[in-house]
């Protein structure tokens, strides 16, 4: 049993089609800690001690958010800025996150072919997630291959929401039950709900 902590951040969640459903599913998975950052800290007064305690008590930290301007929603940036303290997460004596895993579950408005050197986003999606990848590295955490849903705004029109949410739910359960193959996931830059390396029996 891996102790899994899910951080959800979406300020306009009531306009959301995908993330709201994902959050609903994640909340229902038993044995997983689910945190809605905008609900816990509507005025951005993040409790650093409480958050650090949460981190220490879990093995896997998963951030679920829509990609805003190639980055996280603002509260998640605020969270990084003040929770990942020197002496706690990195730097001298900052070894409290060592060996833990960090994973992202993002939704992107652009289709997958936009995230190529010829597409309008010009770079692969993974490139835009490098700041978080390096954050994990500096904290001596293992950065796992991110789960993404491309063309998320169109997803309701093409019936992509349900399978993505189901895949997300399975991912969380698999991580919880140690059935997720972290090693196999390494081979891909970005995973989608169809390519998650989950084994049925642990």
């Amino acid at each position: 049993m891996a102790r899994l902590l899910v951080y959800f951040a979406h300020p306009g969640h009531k306009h959301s089609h995908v993330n709201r459903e994902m959050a609903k599913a994640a909340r229902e998975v038993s044995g997983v800690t689910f945190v809605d950052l905008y609900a816990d800290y509507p005025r951005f007064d993040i409790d650093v001690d409480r958050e650090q305690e949460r981190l220490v008590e879990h093995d896997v930290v998963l951030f679920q958010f829509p990609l805003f301007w190639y980055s996280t929603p603002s509260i998640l940036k605020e969270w990084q800025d003040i929770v990942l303290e020197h002496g706690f997460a990195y730097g001298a004596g900052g070894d409290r996150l060592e060996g833990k895993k960090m994973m992202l579950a993002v939704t992107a408005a652009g289709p997958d072919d936009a995230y190529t050197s010829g597409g309008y986003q010009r770079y692969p999606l993974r490139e835009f997630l490098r700041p978080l990848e390096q954050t994990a590295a500096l904290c001596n955490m293992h950065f796992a291959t991110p789960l993404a849903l491309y063309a998320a705004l169109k997803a309701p029109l093409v019936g992509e929401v349900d399978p993505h949410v189901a895949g997300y739910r399975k991912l969380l359960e698999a991580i919880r039950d140690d059935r997720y193959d972290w090693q196999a996931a390494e081979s891909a830059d970005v995973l989608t709900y169809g390519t998650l390396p989950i084994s049925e029996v642990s």
Partner: protein
Amino acid sequence: MDGFLLLAFLFLVAGCVAVPIASRLGLGSVLGYLLAGIAISPLLEMLHVDVISIQHFAEFGVVMMLFLVGLELEPRMLWNMRNKLLGLGGLQITLTAALVMAIAMMLGYSWTVALAVGLVFSLSSTAIVLQTLNEKGLMKSDGGQSSFSVLLMQDIAVIPMLAFVPLLALPELQELAAAGHAAGEDGHGSLSLVDQLVGWQRALLTVGAIAFVVVGGSYLTRPIFRFVSSARLRELFTATALLLVISIALLMVLVGLSPALGAFLAGVVLANSEYRHELESDIDPFKGLLLGVFFITVGAAIQFDLLFNNLGEIVGLTLGLIALKALVLYALSRIFKVAGADRWLFTLGLAQAGEFGFVLLSFTVANAVIPPELAERLMLVVALSMLLTPLLFIIYEKIIAPRFVAAQERPSDEIDEAGKVIVVGHGRFGGIVNRILLAAGFSTVVLDYQSEQLEALRVYGIKVFFGDAMRPDLLHAAGIEEAKMLVIAIDDKENATELVKYVAANYPHVYIVARAIDRHHVYELYNAGCRDIIRETFDSAVRAGRSALEALGVHPYDAERQVRGFVLNDQEQMLALASSFDPEIPAHENEEYVRRTREYLDRYADVMQGNSARFATRLDRGWVPPTLEDVEAEGTKDDS
């Protein structure tokens, strides 16, 4: 009665004419009073007024002044001054007295006379110097503080001098004195408890009296003031303050101590009291008037016939005395490292003889120490040197200080009062403001007139002063001139508005934060000149609304944004209405006001019915995803 009215009229006219002119010319009020005294002296002579007895009466102004000086000085500060007091002050007295004595002996006077003259001349004028330093804002400077130390030491030294002088009595004068006692009484000496007592009893009584002032000041004053303030009568408090000073002075006279010293001690004891600013503003006008009368009598007492008959001799003596005292002061300032312009302020400021010189002189004559003819001349020298003091200050100000302006850029003095915030009202509202300011390291002066509350706060170490902030003099005592900000947290609507009006008009540099009771009050405060108005219940109501939304299942972040939008809209409307509000016109007759209110109500109805996006977009702008048509187009911002 007629005589009294005429006399009061004369003094007041002289003061009211001469002082503004002197101030206009940059000579300071002291010189103005002195000149006024000289101007009315022929009239007073015609009316056979006993100027000297008025002077003794007016000397009480000095007592009050020292009480006020004491109020400004906390015991800790006094203790920090001990080196300057004893070193600087003590040396100034002994050196000056010794030099004057030596010169007098060279002129052929006996050593007893010479010593008495030395003691008389060693004193400077507390009244003139402190008044001038305060007036010119030099009190806090290094030179001002050194001058104060010396003056305080001199005031203390007068007591042993008065005890010592009778020992110098000349046998041949004693008979004379016994015959005519009229030459002078020292004004305080007529009443005494201690005359009949032997040494140790006397000492015991003296110590007891001082202990009574200290202990009584610490423990007795508070219940008394509380009792008096419960009557809520302003003049009663003034009366109590006067009673306090007078009773201390009386006690000191009874045990043979200097009333000025006793008052000073009482002031120091009360410096930490919450009634400090109230006492200050109550006593201050009396002090000012009495000192004015005192200076007028100094001017009026100059005997011009004697002066003109011996013009060369007396002017020469005066200038010599000033030069000698200045020399001693200059030497001391070098030893005690008073530098730059401050050295000259110290040297020139204290170079005169003082009002205690008069007291001591009449005392020496009464005790047959100095022959009356000599004393008369010395009186003239003292008066003339006091008359010249304002000129010395002018020399300092116009010629010496400008030269040092550039050199004065040393690290500034203790700025214990800079950036100060005055908080008016320390109840449920002001108390919180004060706590926040203190926690952030700002120094505050809190005024409140409910003494029960003050007592409670003192227990927790919160410094609050008793007083009605509606009084300009109290605001002045609390330091409104140097304050950066005024927080008005009183619950009386009209008073708050009045206060804003007064401060905005008279102290435009002071930033005002005001508590408003309701919407209408906001407009009044705005109109009075306040631009930072906080409605006392608005924020808590908003929070209650937010809490309700959350409890009803609205996502906390949505609830937060909902109320933020509400607050912004409300403030916008409030500002628009405030600028069209006119306190002279009832709101419903103010066309502009009515029109704007209508506009807002219409808009609000639109929002409620969903006809206007204005309110809604403020909440959700930024999180609304592109429409599906937009999604078809390329290059959208990532969102889902």
